[in-house]
Each structure stands twice: as structure tokens, then as C-alpha cells.
């Protein structure tokens, strides 16, 4: 840079001298004054700027440069040649710069024309050399799903004198290793090549050919990225493709995408950024523009897929994979900000954010679809025996599984989300997620209640509600879902189950118990005997009936089943015992009592213990 400044200064000094000096002697005087002013000027200014001098400089440069331009061999196959060529180009650029302000002089002007012509030819050649170097380096790079390249051997050892076009493959041996660690630093091109490219880029920029340089660069690197992504198994899928894909296939694509987008943002793009920065060192807007041109297409392709997932079906089964995509983007947001921090990439950053938010919407949409599913589940098919309904099982297991991703879901359901605050979110039970969960539970309960009304027997109705209610509570307790819904909710619902228990007791057994009520102040002995006989008959038929029906009913939970049985026998046994005892005391009845008593107290208890085992043996 200092060198350039000095040359500029010389040129200006000469120019001033020439313009101000009306005669040659005046010019000489002025030059003398300048020379006396500073020692450095003295030397330079004593060279007479004659047309001969200019032409001689030009002829020298022409000779030097044309030698290289006309050769078919790549100049950069030999480092000495490359250096010499660049040196000549530098001089040419300097000459053009020096002579341009003096172009009014006709002779200088014609030399300037030739120089510019020569410069253009040099630039064309440099562009070709540049392109060749970029493409060569990209050939041997391999990065697949199950392989990773080792951080390659120290390229500072790479000998520039070596034939740069020798087989470089031995330095890029793919090793069979899972990419688990994204901390791999990959140098996309050997350091020597990068140095060469930078040297060429510098000259092209200086000569005003930065556009050509950038185009050559981005075309090649774009192709490289494209290649990398297809090696990662990433297909170019349209939104329609994704929309119509089978779910299992889409799951696979999502897996591939997650790996690819991580590799892209943590390895490939930073690597490209470093490459741009090094090749266009000192020309930051060229570096920024090149980076954007290189990465734009791939980024759009990656984001398009995530978008397609977000726009796709809201089937509840998709929740977990959609959450995966959401979380992946969320975790990569800092990388997006980092990689695409310059002005040209603003659009890409915004796109990423928009699509991430859309994925959040998709998750909320999936829950809405779940709500619809529950609401629409017909209250038609009654589960035989009042057992557990499939929808209860489905919803509860679904919610339990969903709540394993509680933190992410909290984020999704909060209105304003700042992904950076993830860990510090105050997770209260009045959070949007908690409200959503409570709402789904309410929908489930309403649906179950509607289903329970299908049973004409209100006792079965209660058993159904008990079963499903108990299952719900079990699944809620001891996990995130319970924390979300809160202790109060659990208490309330436990009480509900208990209430159903009471309802069951009442609707099944109150009439039986009523029959067994012993009237101490009986009327006449004969009347007592008769009514007792009636009562016994009634009891037998009621009990028979109940036993027949309710032994095929189901209580899936062991504890609940035992509770029910013991509460039934707890109220029935003593009543029956009393009743039987009082039967014995009745005068003419007592002796023949055995004829009418079908069930002993033990029998009753035994039968009660066979209730609720269901047709398949009961255990759920």
C-alpha cells in the first residue's frame, strides 16, 4: 500500500510539473524544487518522463506478459511463473494508473490504449487461472453422513514448489466415523491454493475486474455445496412432493434434513465464509457478496423443506418429528445470525425466522387437530364391560409423550418467544401450555361422558367413567403432564373418580340393600315369614342378575377393582349376614330356610370377588 502511495505521489508530482511548467526549463526548475524537497522524489523525478520511456516500459511488460498468456500450460502450475506473472501484472496496473492522468498527451494515450488492452488480456487469463484453482481444490472433498474428513494435515506444510496439480486425494481420506462433533474445522481448500487465489483476486480487484472474479468464484463454490448436499442424501423436494409423501418416507427425509442442516450451518457455511474472507481479504463487500451468492441457493433449499413440513398435514402422529424440525431450527438460530450477519443476507435470516415461527404454528395446529379428533370421536361404539376406551389410552399416552418435550412446547405456546431465553422460562401452571393441556383433558372428559351415556345401565356408566378416570389420573401423575395440570387438578379428578364409585354403589346395590333391610318390628309372624320369603327371592334374583352382568364388566386397575369389591362386600356382607340370621329366627321358616337361601354369606363374598373380571379374565 505504501508502495502504491509513493507511486501515486510521483505521478502527481510529474503531472504538476508538466502542467505548471510552460517551458521545459520551467518544468526542470519545478522538478528540481521537488527533488530538493524530498530525497525520495529526487531519484524518481530524474527519470525523464519521455515517450520513449513509456513505450519501453510497455514493450517490456508486453513481452513478459504475452509469454504467459500465449502459453497453454496453467501459469499456476509453477510457483515461480505465477509470481513473475503477478509481478508483471502489478507493474502493468501501476503503469495504467500512472499514465491515465497524462492521457492528454497523444503518445502516452496510444501507449495507454495498448496497456489497457494488455491488462484486459491479463485479466482474462487470471480469471481462467482463478477458476482452475478453485475447481481443482473442490474435487477431492467428501463429506457424507457416516463419514467425516479428519481435520486435514497441516496445510502450512504444503510445499508451494510442489506441482500443485498433483493428486491431492491422499490428503482427503474419508474416515468412517459418525459426525457427532460439529467442531470439525474444515479447510475447504489447501492453504497454498487460498493464497494463490487471494493474490489473483487482489489484482483483479485492482484492475476493476472484481465482478468476473466473484462470478468465477461463486459458480464453482455453489456447485460444490450442491454436490455436498446431494451426497448428504438431500433431495430437492417441492412443497407438493412433501405434501403428498407417505409419512414414513417423510420421517426419513426429516432425519436426513436435520443432519444436513446441522452440517450446513456448523461446518459448510462457516467454512465458506472463512474461504471468502481469506480469498477476498481486504475487500469486504466482495467477500460478503460472494458468500451470499454461494450459500443462498442451498440455504433456500434447506429452508424450503422445513417450510414444507410446517405447511403440511397436522395429523397428531406428526408432532414429534415436527418438534424435531422446530428444535433443530431453534438451536441453529444463533448459527444463522452468525453466518448471515451481513446486509446481503438479511433476507435469509428473516426467512429462517419466519419459517421457524411457522413450525411453531404447525405444532399448535397439531394440538388443535388433536382437539378436533377428540371432539369428533363418535359416542357410538360402547366399550363392552365399561372398560378403558381406546381414545383415553391414545390421548393420555400421546400427552405423556408430548410432555417429554415440555420446554420446547412451552416455548411454542407462549405468544412472544425469545429462543435465547429458553432455560430461564418460568414454568408456571398457568402457562399457555398448561392451559392447552387442561383444555384437552376437558374435551376428553366431555367426550367420555357422552360415551358413557350410551350405556343404558347407569351403574355401567359409572364403571366406565371410573375406569377411564382412573387411567387418566395414573397417566397424569408422576410426570411433566401432572406438573403442568397441577396438584389441584389431580385432587379434583381423584375426587371425581370417587364420586363415580359412590354412584356405582348406589345405582347397583341400593335396591339390593333395600331388600335386605330387616324390619325389627315386624308384624305378624306369618306376615314376616311371607315378606321375608319374598325378600329372599328378590335378593336372589337381584344378586343373580348383578353377578351375571357385572362379572363381565371390567375394572382394569387392580387397586380400584379391589376397592370396589371390598366396598361392595363391606356394605353387602354384614347386611346379608343380618338378614340370613334374622331368617333363622323366623318360626316356620327357619327350618326350611336352607331351601330358599341360595347363597351363603361366603358364597356372596366369593361371587363379589368375581365381579369386574371381564370376559377375558379382567386384568388390564
Amino acid at each position: 500500500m505504501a508502495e502504491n502511495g509513493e507511486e501515486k505521489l510521483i505521478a502527481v508530482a510529474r503531472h504538476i510539473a508538466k502542467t505548471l511548467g510552460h517551458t521545459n526549463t520551467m518544468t526542470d526548475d519545478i522538478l528540481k524544487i521537488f527533488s530538493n524537497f524530498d530525497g525520495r522524489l529526487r531519484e524518481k523525478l530524474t527519470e525523464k518522463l519521455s515517450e520513449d520511456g513509456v513505450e519501453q516500459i510497455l514493450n517490456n511488460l508486453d513481452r513478459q506478459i504475452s509469454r504467459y498468456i500465449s502459453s497453454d500450460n496453467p501459469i499456476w502450475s509453477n510457483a515461480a511463473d505465477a509470481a513473475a506473472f503477478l509481478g508483471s501484472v502489478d507493474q502493468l496496473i501501476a503503469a495504467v494508473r500512472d499514465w491515465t492522468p497524462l492521457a492528454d498527451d497523444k503518445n502516452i494515450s496510444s501507449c495507454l490504449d495498448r496497456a489497457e488492452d494488455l491488462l484486459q488480456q491479463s485479466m482474462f487469463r487470471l480469471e481462467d487461472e482463478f477458476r482452475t484453482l478453485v475447481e481443482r481444490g473442490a474435487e477431492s472433498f467428501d463429506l457424507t453422513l457416516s463419514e467425516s474428513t479428519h481435520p486435514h494435515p497441516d496445510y502450512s506444510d504444503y510445499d508451494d514448489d510442489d506441482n500443485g496439480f498433483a493428486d491431492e486425494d491422499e490428503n482427503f481420506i474419508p474416515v468412517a466415523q459418525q459426525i457427532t462433533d460439529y467442531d470439525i474445522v474444515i479447510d475447504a481448500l489447501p492453504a497454498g491454493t487460498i493464497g494463490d487465489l487471494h493474490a489473483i483476486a487482489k489484482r483483479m480487484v485492482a484492475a476493476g475486474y472484481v465482478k468476473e472474479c466473484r462470478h468465477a468464484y461463486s459458480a464453482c463454490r455453489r456447485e460444490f455445496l450442491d454436490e455436498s448436499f446431494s451426497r448428504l442424501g438431500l433431495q430437492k423436494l417441492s412443497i407438493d412432493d412433501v405434501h403428498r409423501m407417505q409419512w414414513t418416507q417423510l420421517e426419513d427425509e426429516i432425519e436426513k434434513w436435520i443432519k444436513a442442516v446441522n452440517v450446513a450451518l456448523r461446518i459448510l457455511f462457516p467454512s465458506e465464509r472463512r474461504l471468502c474472507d481469506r480469498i477476498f481479504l481486504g475487500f469486504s463487500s466482495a467477500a460478503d457478496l460472494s458468500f451470499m451468492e454461494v450459500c443462498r441457493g442451498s440455504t433456500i433449499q434447506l429452508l424450503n423443506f422445513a417450510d414444507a413440513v410446517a405447511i403440511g398435514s397436522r395429523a397428531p402422529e406428526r408432532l414429534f418429528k415436527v418438534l424435531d424440525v422446530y428444535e433443530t431450527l431453534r438451536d441453529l438460530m444463533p448459527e444463522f445470525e452468525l453466518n448471515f450477519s451481513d446486509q446481503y443476507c438479511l433476507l435469509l435470516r428473516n426467512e429462517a425466522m419466519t419459517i421457524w415461527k411457522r413450525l411453531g404454528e404447525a405444532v399448535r395446529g397439531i394440538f388443535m387437530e388433536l382437539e378436533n379428533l377428540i371432539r369428533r370421536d363418535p359416542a357410538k361404539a360402547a366399550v363392552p364391560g365399561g372398560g378403558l376406551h381406546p381414545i383415553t389410552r391414545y390421548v393420555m399416552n400421546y400427552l405423556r409423550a408430548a410432555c417429554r418435550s415440555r420446554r420446547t412446547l412451552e416455548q411454542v405456546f407462549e405468544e412472544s418467544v425469545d429462543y435465547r431465553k429458553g432455560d430461564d422460562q418460568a414454568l408456571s401452571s398457568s402457562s399457555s401450555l398448561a392451559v392447552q393441556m387442561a383444555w384437552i383433558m376437558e374435551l376428553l372428559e366431555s367426550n367420555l361422558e357422552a360415551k358413557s351415556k350410551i350405556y343404558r345401565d347407569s351403574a355401567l356408566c359409572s364403571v366406565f367413567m371410573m375406569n377411564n378416570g382412573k387411567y387418566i389420573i395414573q397417566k397424569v401423575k408422576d410426570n411433566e403432564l401432572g406438573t403442568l395440570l397441577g396438584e389441584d387438578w389431580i385432587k379434583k379428578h381423584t375426587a371425581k373418580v370417587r364420586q363415580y364409585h359412590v354412584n356405582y354403589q348406589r345405582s347397583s346395590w341400593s335396591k339390593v340393600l333395600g331388600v335386605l333391610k330387616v324390619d325389627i318390628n315386624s308384624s305378624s309372624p306369618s306376615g314376616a315369614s311371607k315378606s321375608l320369603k319374598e325378600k329372599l327371592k328378590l335378593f336372589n334374583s337381584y344378586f343373580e342378575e348383578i353377578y351375571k352382568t357385572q362379572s363381565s364388566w371390567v375394572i382394569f386397575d387392580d387397586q380400584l377393582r379391589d376397592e370396589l369389591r371390598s366396598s361392595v362386600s363391606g356394605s353387602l356382607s354384614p347386611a346379608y349376614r343380618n338378614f340370613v340370621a334374622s331368617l333363622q329366627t323366623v318360626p316356620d321358616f327357619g327350618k326350611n330356610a336352607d331351601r330358599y337361601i341360595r347363597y351363603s354369606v361366603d358364597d356372596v363374598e366369593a361371587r363379589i370377588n368375581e365381579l369386574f373380571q371381564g370376559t377375558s379374565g379382567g386384568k388390564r
Partner: protein
Amino acid sequence: MPATDYQESSSSPSSFGFSILSRRRDQVHSMESTHDATGQETELEAFQRQVAERFQDLAAADSHELLSIPWIRKLLDAFLCCQEEFKIIVMNNKSKLNKPPMDRHISDFFERSVKALDVCNAIRDGIEQIRQWEKQLEIVLCALGNQRSIGEGQFRRAKKALVDLAIAMLDEKDSNTTLAHRNRSFGRHNAQKEQRSFGHFRSLSWSVSRSWSAARQLQAISSNLVAPRGNEIMSTNGLNVAVFTMNYVLLFVMWALVAAIPCQDRGLQTHFYMTRQFLWAVPILSLHERILEEAKKRDRRNSCGLLKEIHDIEKCARHMNELTDSIHFPLTEEKEREVKQRIEEVRRVYDAIKDGLDPLERQVREVFHRIVRSRTDGLDSISRANSHD
């Protein structure tokens, strides 16, 4: 011509859909009507009228404006307005859209919307393609635009950029044929790299696979799109006319975009259901015809996009090529003047593209987002408006 068409149709009683609605309105007025029923029909009629007005306005463009970037932007604006109005109609009628036959119609519309999304993405790619051409023009301007005197070197530089431009534009058109070997490089060691360089312009262009086809996508959007029959219009109170209208508008806008902007497998043979029943059908179909006419013109038949600015690029590139081919050094004053003239032409074309492409791309993106938004919101609100049996 479009203006006359409009006048013709309005004087004829054949605005079937419109008159059906007005007959219905008369019926409604003749009996005790709820405010809602009248309100709905007015809303639907208003929608028809507004769509018609917007497309009449677009159809009034002369041949210079048609398919220019500003016109396309107007088209997209019109689409967004129609979309917004339709969204409101969906909101206001969600309980009806939940039941047959409207449920089928509306879900069909949302399915077509998804296909339109891919067209938007392809158009975005196409705009990026045009940007690449803009860059070549920039080099031409740089080479010949502001030199004190233009030497052979600058011409060679401009020529190279023009050759690259031609190849890039050719790549678009003949993406399935092998291209002639070009030898623009000065060193022959690049020969084996040529084949690979061709791929630069092609494979990198599209964010979709090679098998994706704009023509097929448009065909899918237009398949089975037929005007609703009179009895169904009556039974849905004209709601299915609104859905049909929005479908048609969507189809036309996507078709026009594909016509204008380069994309993979551009085909304009899409079947448009011919109808004069509706007020908006006349301007839309007249635009359709005009665009097809443009496509058939000799100098546009092989173009990669009917965008006016693309034509301008082709023209100024051709002029520039002719000029550079006829250049002998030293330049006469006359030739210098000609060069300045041609360069001004290039500059005009370049400026128009530079100023126009970014806002156009943003707008296409906006269209994409709004289609997604209105589909999501529409589906959600309809599924929530549950008919409690």
C-alpha cells in the same frame, strides 16, 4: 380491445352468475329476510365486482406495459387484494364451509393453493436467474460505459460478458439438450472443464429437482376447474361462485408469472375453462389471449420468459453484439457515437432491472406467505366452526 369486450358483455344478459345473484336478492327482498342473508349476498357480489374491476384495470395496459415488471407487480397486488377479500368471506361463512358440498370445494381450493406455493418458489429462482443476467450487463456497462476512450480490450471484455449472457439465457431454454461447445477461454487447458462449466448455469438454478415442471404444476392447479352450475349456485347462495372465482384468479396469476419469468419446464398450454358468465372472466381471458399472442410472436417464441425487460435484454444484447462484431479499430467518430447510444440502451435496461427485481422478489415472497397464512387460517377456522350434531 379489452375495453370493447367488457362493454359487449355488460350489455348482454349473459352475466349469468351476476344475474343469478341479483335474482336471488330480489327473491330475498320479496320475503321477510334476515339481515344476514342480504349481507352475505352483497359481500359476494362485491367480491365479484372488485375482482372484475382489478382485472379490467390490468387489462387496460397497453402493449408496452403488459408483462413488464411494474405490471407484474400490479398483478400481484391485485391478487393480494382478492386474497384478502376472499379470506374475509371464508371467515364469515365458516360454518357453511364445514358442510357438503362447500367443504369439498374449499378444501379443493386449499389444495390448489399448495401447488401455487411451488410456483412462487420457482418464480423466485427465476428472478435470481434474471439477476445473473443483470450482472453480465453490469460488466458490459463497466467495460464500455465510462471510459475516456474505448479500446479493443474493453470491447473484448464486453463481448465476453455478452457471450456469457447468451449462454446463460440459452441454458434456460434448452436445459435438456446438450449445448454447443463454446470456447471463450483463452487457454485450452480448460477444455475438459467446459462440460462442467455448463452445469454451473443449469443445475444451480433451481431449488427443485430436475423432474419438477411448471407446466405440470399449472395443469394440476387448473384440473377440473369448471364453473359451478346454476342449481349449485342457488343451493350454496353463491358461495361456490366465490370459491370458483378465487381459484380462477389463483390459476391466472400463477400462469402469468410462469409466462413472464424463467422457470423449469415453462409451458403455457394450461387449459383455462372458458366462461363468460362472470364479470371478471372477460378481462382475465382477454389478458390470457394477449399473453398467448405475445408468446407466439416470432421473436418471442424461443424466449425464456415473456417479461418485457427480458425482451429488452435480448434486444440490447443483440444490438450490442451486432455493434461489437462490426467494430474495426481505430473507431470512427460515428462508431463512437453508436457505441455511446447502445451503451445508453444497455444502461436503461440495466437500471430498470436493478430497480425492479428486488421489490418484485419481495412481492412474490409476500404472495407466498399470504397464501400460506390464508390457507392455515381458513382451514383452522373452518375445522373449529364445528357443526355440533
